[in-house]
């Protein structure tokens, strides 16, 4: 990246990982440092390759949902939901309104839980343990709600093809519990956010580092809150049919630094609370699942969804027996990766991990092939793999 116009002499290479105190997930960071200033950064993500896309081949969709949910443990609902949206779009399966509302409720609950993990992680990196612990405590109320709805804290498996599982149907008492918890949470969370923003120590640590301008964000395909923190007003939720009934704002920030990325996520939680309230209050009556569908042949269909980290793509085809062929997943983190690498450049070396953490990497769900050629490794994109080796047989 830094190479191009002028070549920079690199004094030292710092390499972390794959198992390192500052990194929770296994990935490798190589920082090329010149006088403690980062000149270039390389993230290597291929430490958790599980071959999950290959497992999908030849399975009926209902069974594939089991695996789709296990792609990621933080955004498990999103993967299950998007896997279902592909077949619903492709075979024109009608989804009852009530099911859509419950899916949205679970989605926003997990968004809050996911953003609070980021705060926990980011403030752990900053070194402010009190804020990290408080965000973990706040998160518990939403983990409880997810387990009330779905039955499991991490893998709620709410969506099935044509609706949601009847177990996840919201009863009157559960609706009341959700509204109460949301009010309780908002009060505590407001105090928490106010404390973060008014804390000069933490803010001075976050402000003015990890710049990612709007042009760079668009150039490197930063999606989700990482892109929105650079002033790029792009949120897929505004275009999705499922989100049509709800009124919410897209949070953007023009200051483009690490603070902006934290603040955008902090404010996004309020919008999520707004959506949950509207959805629970206006929950329509009716069935939660439409069982009148038959698996059949389907051409390649793609579904896009705004997850907590950015844009998620699931795509597959069904053969004549209704079995899945060529499953393809693109999670938001690989698209954010170049932006993360770019944001580190030019800062002091101590800020690098914080900058990467503020982009909220979730590296378990990235799958890419890596080619090691005479000691120099590079990563191929999906299209290059297909061009070089053809579609998976």
């Amino acid at each position: 990246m830094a190479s191009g116009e002028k070549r920079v002499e690199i004094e030292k290479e710092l390499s972390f990982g794959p198992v390192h105190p500052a990194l929770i997930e296994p990935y490798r960071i190589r920082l090329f440092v010149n006088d403690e200033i980062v000149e270039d950064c390389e993230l290597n993500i291929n430490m958790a390759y599980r071959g999950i896309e290959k497992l999908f081949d030849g399975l009926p969709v209902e069974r594939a949902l089991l695996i789709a949910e296990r792609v990621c443990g933080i955004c498990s609902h999103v993967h299950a939901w998007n896997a279902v949206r592909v077949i619903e779009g492709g075979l024109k399966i009608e989804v009852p309104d009530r099911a859509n509302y419950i899916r949205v409720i679970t989605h926003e609950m997990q968004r809050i839980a996911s953003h609070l993990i980021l705060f926990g992680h980011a403030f752990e990196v900053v070194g402010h343990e009190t804020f990290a612990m408080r965000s973990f405590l706040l998160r518990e109320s939403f983990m409880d709600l997810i387990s009330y709805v779905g039955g499991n804290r991490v893998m709620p498996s709410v969506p099935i093809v044509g609706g949601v599982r009847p177990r996840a149907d919201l009863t009157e008492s559960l609706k009341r519990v959700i509204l109460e918890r949301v009010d309780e949470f908002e009060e505590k969370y407001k105090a928490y956010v106010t404390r973060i923003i008014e804390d000069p120590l933490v803010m001075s640590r976050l402000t003015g580092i990890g710049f990612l301008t709007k042009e760079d964000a668009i150039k490197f395909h930063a999606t989700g809150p990482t892109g929105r923190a650079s002033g790029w007003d792009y949120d897929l939720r505004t275009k999705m049919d499922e989100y049509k009934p709800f009124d919410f704002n897209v949070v953007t920030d023009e200051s483009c630094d690490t603070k902006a990325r934290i603040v955008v996520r902090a404010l996004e939680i309020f919008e999520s609370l707004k959506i949950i309230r509207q959805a629970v209050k206006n929950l329509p009556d009716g069935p939660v699942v439409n069982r009148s569908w038959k698996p059949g042949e389907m051409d390649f269909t793609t579904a896009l969804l705004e997850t907590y980290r950015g844009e998620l793509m699931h795509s597959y085809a069904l053969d004549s027996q209704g079995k899945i062929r060529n499953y393809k997943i693109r999670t938001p983190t690989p698209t954010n990766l170049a932006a993360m690498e770019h944001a580190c450049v030019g800062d002091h070396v101590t800020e690098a991990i914080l900058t990467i953490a503020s982009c909220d990497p979730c590296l378990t769900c990235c799958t890419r092939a890596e080619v090691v050629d005479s000691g120099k490794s590079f990563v191929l994109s999906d299209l290059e793999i297909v061009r070089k080796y053809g579609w998976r047989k």
Partner: protein
Amino acid sequence: MNLKATSRKNAIHVMVAYTGGCNGCDIEIVNAVLSPRYDVEQYRVLLTWNPREADVLIVSGVVAWQMVEPLKKIYESIPEPKGVVAVGACAVNGNVYKNLVGDIGENEEIWAPVDTVIPVDVKVPGCAPRPEDVIAGVVKALPKILEAP
């Protein structure tokens, strides 16, 4: 309880080795140890990332090919006596990746059960196990450490 056991009991260090799962178990483990709700730090069980300090190694996730050697290295650098807890269905039996349901098919990209790589003392099943279960698993591994000569 002799002096050695008493002093060991006062500072149990837990290390999490993440070997390529889905993050679900991993966060539940960190939750169990750190987060204020489950907080086992109050019983002087501390989370560490240095294998040379650790007493209990918690392994989560399917063992990806790239993580086999690092996992062995981590296990070897933990001083005796040590306990190993495998947390989550992936670490215990391979979950969906190793044909759990019967007809999903086996995945050759991973080395699933952790006990094929390093010896495991306690297994905590569940996808993902609750933090209470993780705590119970760690407590079950403690007698081995405390009673060691």
